[in-house]
């Protein structure tokens, strides 16, 4: 919203604060200034529209002038001269639903001369970014920019019938608007209609057919009030934002329609000499509700601000903003909200804390530490665990990435995801990024391919949420890429899994997905619980190298973390170790042989470690283990150790394994 400095000077007595200084004061006390620019002999202060969304009154110069007057302690000059319009209206107004149109006021003028506006008026409009059109339209825009009251002038000769109807559009009704666009309407759009159809989209734009032209001599001047959310909905459905709709969206003051007409009446006489009022005021409205006063305890106010504000200062501030203040008890005010602040903006006592706070200046409030008891905040174990995982992965050489939560249906299919079971975005940023990820794999896959262009080998990981229709699951997905043909990736990642969850094991998967290497894919298990997947990407998925992935469910990983409780006393008696080599078929699993050995060793076994494997000429593998045995209360004799060893050897032999001794 652009504010003309000269215009503000008309409305604030003895305004002499330089424009840039004024803009700073407005920023600190009222709304954010985005800059000051010279405009001829005027200066324009640009205020951020976003900082005005709650202030219908500040969409006109008079509202801002009231702020400036209050800030500077000057007198506010009202540009409106009250008029006594006759009651015999020459146009009839009917309103179908007062909820959508609380008030519709209109005057009819005769003997109008349409011509360019005088220079001063054109300059004012140009300064605030409005295009001068002709004297009649310019007057309506002037009132809009001054009083925040949107108005519209119809060429009365082009309105059919004697009644102006405010009603929902009929399905399929069309209107050619002043911008030369034709809009097709539906019953959610409110229109102004004559006997033949819509002549304006209520609160947004007038129709071209009843527009003011050079031949216009009689006009109907509309000054109405429309429901904010209805205007907003229609404006957003038609993708049509106008100076009028922007104001009505903020919930304008129904009292203001008459002030708008009074101001326009005076201006018309100046810009179209000889203009005559035809009949009197048409004014259709429902009773304007008077909100109850807000009760403000001054002690409460001081506690909210954290600073004492003298009673008379509170009163002065509120009155300068035209709140009416009555003291109903010692140090308790009853505050009556002016109509232009009462539509939405000020309804509760907290709103008054803001009025007083901003005017005394928040910089006058010294920072104070609160006197509250010290409390240990509730812990966030999940977050702490995620961070430990992050640090562990980084220590193992993995770099953290963040990927988007969106994926495409094509990608989902690559990862064998059931598209229909995914959460779908109705309005995706790019039409094909319409699914929420149920896995971090798609993002990690893209990271691998992107980074393979720059690096021969790399490791990366992400901690993020997989989003399913029934909830969000934190996942950890790490990947390793190397431009070689080795299998080191899955083992590096297996080591990472072992670091993250001691005691974890990997079991070759019975079935694999199309993106997985069928012979290098396994489930990551903790006991019998599946905590994730370890796999190498199928060679068709990654060019120029091998990429392996570890994909873990962080919730399960956290639940299964071992918690040391009672320590194991250190062993007092020496232990004995011996090595065994088992000859196994080429695809016998190291882990399976190991558990067979463990079972046979029994209670005496303290530890078993796989040492090495060695390929035999016939293709079999010789798998070597070191077994350590002992007893808690004595040293095992050579005979006892020998018995254990013999038991294992014989057990393995009877299970069909050959041992190399």
């Amino acid at each position, binding site marked *: 919203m652009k504010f003309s400095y000269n215009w503000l000077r008309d409305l604030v007595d003895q305004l002499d604060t330089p424009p840039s200084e004024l803009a700073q004061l407005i920023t600190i006390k009222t709304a954010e200034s985005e800059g000051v620019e010279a405009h001829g002999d005027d200066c324009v202060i640009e205020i951020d529209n976003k900082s005005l969304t709650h202030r219908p009154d500040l969409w006109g110069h008079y509202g801002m002038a009231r702020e400036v007057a209050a800030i500077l302690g000057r007198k506010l000059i009202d540009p409106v001269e009250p008029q006594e319009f006759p009651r015999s209206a020459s146009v009839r107004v009917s309103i179908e639903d007062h909820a959508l149109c609380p008030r519709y006021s209109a005057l009819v003028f005769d003997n109008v001369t349409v011509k360019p506006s005088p220079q001063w008026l054109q300059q004012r409009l140009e300064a605030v970014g409005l295009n001068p059109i002709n004297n009649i339209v310019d007057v309506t825009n002037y009132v809009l920019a001054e009083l925040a009251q949107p108005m519209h002038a119809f060429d009365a000769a082009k309105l059919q019938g004697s009644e102006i109807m405010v009603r929902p559009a009929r399905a399929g009704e069309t209107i050619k608007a002043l911008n030369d666009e034709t809009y097709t309407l539906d019953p959610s759009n409110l229109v102004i209609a004559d006997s033949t159809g819509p002549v304006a989209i209520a609160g947004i734009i007038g129709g071209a057919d009843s527009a003011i032209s050079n031949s216009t001599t009689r006009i109907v001047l509309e000054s109405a009030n429309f429901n904010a959310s209805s205007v907003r909905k229609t404006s957003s459905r038609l993708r049509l934002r106008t100076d009028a709709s922007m104001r009505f969206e903020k919930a304008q003051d129904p009292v203001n329609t008459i002030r708008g007409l009074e101001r326009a009446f005076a201006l018309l006489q100046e810009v179209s000499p000889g203009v005559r009022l035809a009949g009197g005021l048409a004014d259709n409205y429902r009773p304007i509700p008077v909100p109850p006063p807000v009760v403000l305890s001054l002690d409460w106010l001081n506690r909210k601000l*954290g600073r004492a504000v003298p009673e008379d200062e509170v009163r002065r501030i509120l009155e300068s903003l035209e709140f009416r203040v009555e003291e109903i008890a010692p140090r308790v005010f009853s505050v009556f909200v002016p109509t232009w602040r009462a539509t939405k903006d000020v309804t509760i006592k907290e709103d008054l804390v*803001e009025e007083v706070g901003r005017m005394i200046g928040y910089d006058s409030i*010294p920072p104070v530490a609160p006197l509250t008891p010290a409390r*240990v905040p509730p812990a966030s174990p999940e977050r702490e665990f995620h961070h430990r995982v992050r640090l562990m992965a980084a220590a193992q050489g993995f770099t953290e*990435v963040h990927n988007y939560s969106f994926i495409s249906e094509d990608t989902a299919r690559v990862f064998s995801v059931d598209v229909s079971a995914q959460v779908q975005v109705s309005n995706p940023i790019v039409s094909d990024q319409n699914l929420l990820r149920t896995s971090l794999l798609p993002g990690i896959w893209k990271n691998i391919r992107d980074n393979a262009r720059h690096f021969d080998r790399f490791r990366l990981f992400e901690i993020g949420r997989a989003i399913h229709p029934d909830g969000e699951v934190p996942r950890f997905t790490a990947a390793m890429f190397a431009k070689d043909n080795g299998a080191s990736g899955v083992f590096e990642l297996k080591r990472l899994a072992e670091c993250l969850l001691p005691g974890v094991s990997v079991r070759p998967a019975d079935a694999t997905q199309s993106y997985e290497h069928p012979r290098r894919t396994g489930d990551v298990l903790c006991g019998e619980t599946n905590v994730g997947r370890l796999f190498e990407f199928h060679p068709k998925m990654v060019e120029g190298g091998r990429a392996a992935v570890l994909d873990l469910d962080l919730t399960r990983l956290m639940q299964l973390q071992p918690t040391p409780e009672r320590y194991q006393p250190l062993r007092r008696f020496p232990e004995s170790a011996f090595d065994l080599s088992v000859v196994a078929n080429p695809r016998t699993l190291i882990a399976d042989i190991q558990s067979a050995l463990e079972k046979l060793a029994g209670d005496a076994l303290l530890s078993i470690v796989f040492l090495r494997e060695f390929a035999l000429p016939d293709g079999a593998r010789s798998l070597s283990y070191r077994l350590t045995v002992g007893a808690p209360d004595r040293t095992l004799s050579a005979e006892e150790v020998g018995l254990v060893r013999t038991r294992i050897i014989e057990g393995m032999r009877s299970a069909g394994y050959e041992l190399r001794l």
Partner: protein
Amino acid sequence: MSPEQIISDLHATSLSALEQATTLDALEAIRVDALGRKGKLAEVSKAFGKLAPEERARVGKLLNTVKQDLETRLDQRKTALDSVAIDVRLESEWVDLTAPAPGIRPGSLHPITHVQRELEELFVSLGFAIMDGPEVETEHYNFDALNIPADHPARDAQDTFWLKDGRLLRTHTSPVQIRALEKFGPPLKMIAPGRVFRNEEVDASHEHTFYQLEGMMVDRDVSVAHLLYFMKTLLSAIFHRDVTVRLRPGFFPFVEPGFELDIQCLICGGKGCPVCKHSGWVELLPCGLVNPAVLRAGGVDPEQWNGFAFGLGLTRLAMMRYGIDDIRLFAGGDLRFLRQF
């Protein structure tokens, strides 16, 4: 030959052999030969019995002197030879320390993680709890409970990703305010960092996915003065120096009064420079006293309790901290960028 003569000769021979010895083995041979149990000095002392008492005393004294001298010399020589030997070994063990060390290098954490962790630790040290909320939210938590009804213009400012099931991707971390109040009730000091979404075209300064950190304190009689204190304390810690802050009116439906918090420009110290657009101030975060409607939505009686809330843009903070001028780098997954942190 007199015994003295024999001892003196033996002494001289041993000393000269000692001079020529270059190995520990040679030294040992000399020791055994002269001082051993069956060595030459032992041999001489065997003949003691035949000597006259006064001669015996004299020869004995000489014998001891020579013995001690030889032992000392042997030790000295041994030390010298040891030292040569260790020198030779050390010399042969030279390595090129400029060679690269084997093993993997640590990876790095995402810049957002660094900034987020730093803030989390800071807030925890001030007694704040860290809370989480879902990324997929309901309209209730994201808007209605935060005093943003359906037709509120504030919804326009937050372009929302709507989901086909009627839910949405949270547009801010503020819904966690309500969830935290429901779960823990007052008094409460909490922050909620996390990922948020806005349906915006992506360019160097706009992202549809970014990170925020929500903060809230609810207690008895929380004031603007308390908010100022916390903000000043926190921002001084974040920027590692004393910062000057100011509040000015800002409209956010979930707070009343609402503020924009500016900090005095850290580049120019408030004199005005291009970074602060010559205003001396940089807009940093929105904050305010929690709107009573929000407290009520969280099941808290606003007549008994009130609080302050603020929202910090973690992504924006990371951009300021590291001078990152393209927001797309954060989710770009490019290790050339990520390995710098």
